[in-house]
């Protein structure tokens, strides 16, 4: 069976056997289904057996934290081979072979089906859109007054908590996505934020998009203080909020171009905050210009 999804205006297809159990765990993709398969940015296909890749050459092992996925990137037969494990210590659960332009991927799942399919699609989406003014970013997004407000921050900083503080205390707020929305600089130069099938632990898979009102980088602190960021500060906040293979020059150039466009048109802030309603009020009043 083949299904086509459209996320942030980019279509991609995935082919897996009709009875493959992964389909049962992909409800989060349903809002993004489309019938039109024209112009897919990448095509993914599940394979039963991997070719013999013993001549692979290791390029880099990407891992950050014990509880974060580990990915190993190899070069093999003029292609990229990626092997991914759910955590630093876990065995490999996903193997992907993709052409160097990330337009076609064959993947094999060795376990952790939902993790594997999601990781494959997120990586392919991020890499194949790198030069298309699109950025899959780690953030929680709340909508208010027809605009989207992105909250960035390291894992555990309280991005979701800050979104919830807006939603509970400020009228007219709704969650758009709680973990991995996509930013896109549209043809008219407007930066929009899109809901995606990837929302972390919060089941919020909305096929919706709004112009970005502001981007706020959160830091835990003993009191609430907000300030607007300079261009390099804003660039750095966004830079550390998404991942990619930056040593691949095309990809790094694409990410840079997108990031530079975003920070030059969207107001970006740094918020030192407590997890209290006052932090939400201060943030809301400042970024919406109410104060």
């Amino acid at each position: 069976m083949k299904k086509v999804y459209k996320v942030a205006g980019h279509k991609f297809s995935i082919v897996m056997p009709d009875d493959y159990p992964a389909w049962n765990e992909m409800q989060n993709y349903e809002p993004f289904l489309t019938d039109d398969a024209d112009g897919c940015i990448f095509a993914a296909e599940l394979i039963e057996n991997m070719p013999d890749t013993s001549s692979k050459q290791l390029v880099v092992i990407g891992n950050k934290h014990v509880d974060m996925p580990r990915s190993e990137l190899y070069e093999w037969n003029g292609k990229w081979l990626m092997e991914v494990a759910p955590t630093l210590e876990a065995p490999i659960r996903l193997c992907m072979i993709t052409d160097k332009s990330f337009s076609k991927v064959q993947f094999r799942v060795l376990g952790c089906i939902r993790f594997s399919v999601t990781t494959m699609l997120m990586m392919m989406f991020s890499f194949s859109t790198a030069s298309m003014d699109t950025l899959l970013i780690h953030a929680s997004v709340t909508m208010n007054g027809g605009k989207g407000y992105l909250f960035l921050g390291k894992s555990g900083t309280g991005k979701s908590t800050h979104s919830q503080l807006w939603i509970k205390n400020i009228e007219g707020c709704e969650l758009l996505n709680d973990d991995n929305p996509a930013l896109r600089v549209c043809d008219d130069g407007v930066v929009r934020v899109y809901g995606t099938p990837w929302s972390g632990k919060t089941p919020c898979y909305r096929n919706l998009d709004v112009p970005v009102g502001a981007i706020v980088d959160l830091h835990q602190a003993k009191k609430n203080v907000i300030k607007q960021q300079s261009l390099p500060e804003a660039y750095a906040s966004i830079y550390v909020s998404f991942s990619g293979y930056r040593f691949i020059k095309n990809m790094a150039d694409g990410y840079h171009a997108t990031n530079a466009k975003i920070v030059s048109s969207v107001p970006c802030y740094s918020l030192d905050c407590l997890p209290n309603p006052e932090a939400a009020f201060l943030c809301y009043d400042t970024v919406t210009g109410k104060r």
Partner: protein
Amino acid sequence: MRTRKGYTLRSLGKESILVAEGLDAVDFSRMISMNESAAFLWKAVESKDFDAETLAHLLQEEYDITPEVAQKDVAALLDSWKEANIIED
């Protein structure tokens, strides 16, 4: 001395930012913002051997300043580059 490998100078409006994008980079989370003259010097000596005199000379030629001012500016700049660990002996 030489600039460390793995860094890319990216322009951001009038400013520049040095980011660790290469596999050789020592610290991927570090980013150094550079003003126009620092970025000019970085570009001029990237991947080449250089010393304080090289930089002072370049600065003098580009900005029409006295040798004393150039040397002073270069000394301060080199201190910050050393502290940021983006150059090596």
